[in-house]
Each structure stands twice: as C-alpha cells, then as structure tokens.
C-alpha cells in the first residue's frame, strides 16, 4: 500500500470527564461531548467537520452509539459516516480509514470517537466484561465450563507463555509496577499510589495467573480525535501530531496442534506494516503506547512489535527498560492497568499527549517517534500507528 507521507495528522483531541461512578449521561451523550471538545481543541468549527467515525465497546449493542450521534452533535452535510467494529483495534483503525479518506479527497476533517460506560450502579467494570468468550464457536460451550470474559482467555495465554518461556508472576508484577510508576507521574491516571510487591501479591486473584493489578481499570467516558490532512495541521491551534505509519494484522492462528495463538499475535504484522509505511524501525522509537487490558497483553505486544525477542519480555520488563528512566518508555500514562481503560483510545490519547509535549511530569525525553498499538478479540485483531511531532522523519 502506498501512502503520501505523512499519512495525515491528528489536530484535535477531546475527552469527557472519566469516572468510576455511574454516569448521568448516556454513552451517546458522552460521545457528543468528547466530539465537541475535540473540535474546540483543534480550533475548528462544527461546520468544518465532514467525517465522523464511531467506535463502541464490542459488548454493547449498536443502538448504544448509533450514527445519529451525527445529529445529536449537529454535524451537517458529512461526506463520511460509519462505525468501526474491530474491538480494541478500532481506535487506530478509525484513524487509518480517516487518513485514507482524507488522502483520497473524501473528507477533510474526520472525527473519530470512542465512548463507553462499563461501570454501572449495580456492577463494576469487571462484571461488565465477564461475558462468556466463544473460543470454539459452539453455542454455550464455554459458559458450560465457567469460562468467562476476556480475563479467562488472556489468563490462558499468560499461562501458556509461562509454560513455554518461564515467564513468572514476578515478571507480571514488574510490568504492573512499570505502568504504575508512569501513572504516579500522570495527572490523567486513576491509580497513582505506589504499587509495592506486597500490594501486588496480596491483591485477590481474579483468574489465575492474573491478580487484580494485572487487569485493566475500567472507567466511564469518551475520547475523540480529529484527523486532518498533514499539510493543514501545521498552522492549526495545537502542535500537530503527524501520522507516519499505519498497519493492521489479523493472523487467524488456529487453536490446533502445532500453532501457538497464545504467544504469536497479528501485532507483529501490524507493527511491521506501520514501520514500513513510516520508513523507521524499532531502534528509532522514543516511546511506545501499547494496548494492555491485561499485564500479559501489554507484554505480548512488546514481543510482537520487536522491543525484545520472543519469550524474553519477562526479564526485559524486570530489568526496568519500560519504566521511567528506562531505555524505551512504555505506557507513559499508566496504560489500561493504572491509567484508565478506554479501550483503543487509551494508548492513542497518551501518544497524542506525548507528541504534543503536554505530558508534564511524565513527558518522555524523546518524543520524536512513537508507536501506538490496539488489539481486540483473543489476541486476534491488531492495529499499529507511528506518530511524531515532525513532518519529516528521515
């Protein structure tokens, strides 16, 4: 695939208040609020928006975030309106499709929004995400065995990685601690207290090998970004976030003898494509924002994008490479574990913050080139993006 480079730019970002309390507003209302804030942040007017892309949680029905969000927000005469349903890879996919549409002349300023309210009056986010996950496709099979939620599916994958490569609970703790150390520096993060070894190991089991701090911290809210042409972004209100590389990877590794879907994901294909598009490689990266609904999913992403060799992510994290002061900062806002869980928009939000140079105490020293990932399903659906404050990378 050939793109004009930079592929596009992100010129606006809007976020509602994120909350652990039941929301007074519907998902739809939150989406509108985030969209309008993104438009304002970009220094645009509502009439400048000619594209809208929606992403709802895969656990919610389509009416939760209908295309009527357009009318709610008062966007008129759109030339692009759609919903992207690729689970945790959707946020980056929206930016990719928006970029392509802009390059093709289909639209000029495209809003991409994610909104979700998993925390309700009677249940926390954990219960919301605990639906049975169909691994066989045989109706009722997984529920019959009490196999619930993405938590179980990712716990199975972590256990497999532990068996194959000797990854340990200490390694999972090292990952959670690295995220927390970043979160302690971030005013956007929810969990900012030091995560001691005792805190981690004394927390309750959720689905072994995962304890509580291996799991994402769900919140209610919405985040939207505005994608525009690279040329247009340079004179706008905010520092431009140039998008140089984009890629998707959907490997469809079968659950069958000889295959290891638990430890080989399509993230490798997605990242390779993004690197190729941008004309850069792993040593060029200044920071990474990976989708990490569970400690292990972030760790696997690091292996698959090539920060370390396959099977070596445990020691890599334990050596402190990803933490503040390390060789390659990862999830500088605390990620999903300690920051907040807004699915694919969490890493996108943090990457934009870093590229703009608005990270405050958590601002990375080298923000020239950053890699962002998204993933969904059971490590099945992947997208990656390279971003930079510079219009030219090399």
């Amino acid at each position: 695939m050939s793109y004009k480079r930079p592929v596009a730019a992100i010129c606006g970002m809007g976020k509602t208040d994120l909350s652990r309390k039941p929301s007074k507003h519907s998902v739809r209302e939150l989406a509108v609020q985030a969209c309008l804030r993104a438009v304002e942040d970009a220094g645009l007017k509502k009439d400048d928006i000619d594209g809208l892309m929606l992403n709802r949680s895969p656990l919610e029905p389509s009416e939760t975030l209908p295309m009527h969000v357009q009318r709610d927000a008062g966007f008129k005469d759109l030339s692009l309106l759609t919903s992207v349903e690729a689970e945790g890879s959707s946020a980056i996919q929206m930016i990719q499709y928006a970029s392509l549409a802009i390059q093709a002349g289909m639209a000029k300023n495209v809003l991409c929004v994610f909104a979700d309210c998993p925390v309700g009056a009677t249940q926390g986010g954990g219960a919301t995400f605990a639906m049975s996950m169909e691994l066989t496709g045989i109706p009722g099979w997984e529920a019959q065995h009490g196999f619930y939620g993405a938590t179980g599916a990712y716990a199975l994958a972590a256990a497999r990685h532990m068996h194959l490569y000797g990854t340990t609970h200490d390694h999972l703790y090292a990952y959670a601690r690295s995220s927390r150390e970043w979160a302690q520096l971030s005013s956007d993060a929810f969990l900012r207290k030091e995560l001691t070894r005792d805190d981690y190991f004394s927390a309750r089991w959720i689905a072994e090998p995962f304890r509580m701090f291996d799991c994402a911290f769900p919140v209610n809210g919405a985040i939207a970004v505005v994608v525009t042409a690279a040329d247009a972004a340079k004179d706008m209100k905010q520092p431009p976030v140039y998008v140089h590389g984009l890629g998707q990877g959907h490997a469809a590794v079968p659950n069958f003898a000889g295959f290891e879907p638990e430890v080989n994901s399509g993230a490798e294909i997605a990242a390779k494509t993004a690197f190729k598009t941008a004309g850069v490689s792993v040593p060029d990266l200044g920071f990474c924002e990976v989708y990490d609904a569970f400690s292990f999913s972030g760790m696997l992403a690091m292996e698959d994008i090539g920060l370390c060799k396959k099977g070596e992510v445990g020691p890599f994290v334990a050596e402190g490479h990803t933490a503040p002061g390390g060789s390659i900062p990862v999830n500088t806002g605390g990620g999903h574990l300690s920051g907040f869980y807004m699915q694919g928009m969490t890493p996108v939000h943090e990457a934009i913050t870093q590229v703009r140079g608005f990270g405050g105490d958590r601002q990375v020293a080298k923000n020239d080139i950053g890699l962002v990932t998204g993933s969904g399903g059971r490590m099945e659906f992947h997208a990656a993006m390279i971003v930079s404050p510079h219009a030219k990378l090399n």
Partner: protein
Amino acid sequence: MGNKTSRELEEAFYQSLNEGVVSYFSCTDLCGPVDYTARLCPKCGSGLELKAASGRGHVHSAVTYHTQYNENMKTPYTVLMVELEEGPRLIASAISENNSVPEVGSEVMATMKADSVLAFKTVR
C-alpha cells in the same frame, strides 16, 4: 447429501457427549481434523463431519477462576484448554484429584461429569 450446517454440527457434537464420546470436526474430503471454530474445511472448503476422538490429550493451558461470575460455579475452579491427540484444542472442565488439577503440559484423559459436561483428569 449436502454439507452439515453449523447448527447440525454443533448439535451432533453435544449429542455425542450425551453418549459419552468427545468428538471433533473433520473434513469430509481428505484434509483431516480441523479447529473447532471451523464450519467448513479451511484448507479445501469442503463440509465437515464429526469423528470420535480417543479422549486422550494434554493440557495446552489452564486458568483458575477465583472470581465468581456464575452462582452455579463454586470458586475456585479450573478451566483447561486441552489439545486432543487428534490435534484440535477445546475448553473443558478439570477434575481435581488429591487437591490438584492437571497442570499445563500434563497428559490427560476425557471423562464425563454430571449432565454430560466434558472434563479431563490427569493420566497416571
């Protein structure tokens, strides 16, 4: 006869369990066993049929639930992903013996719990 529909395959799978047999899906042509998610042969596009598995396999991975998501499932309980010796992998319940459940990598054998729920126990 046409290919079995997805629903026919799934119903036949449950029916075989009611008869005490764990089955897998296999290509009606020559490609052999397929992943449980397949409803057509991913290699040649032919239909699938059920075949009886030996019931032997090994634990590919395992998770132990401590959080109760279903009031009928007393925690903690372990769910296995078993690789049948014919190749396909599936989720199944674990039989605990002497306070221990099959570990990842261990050889296991199929057995039926109440209500024809498939479970595996360690081969000794």
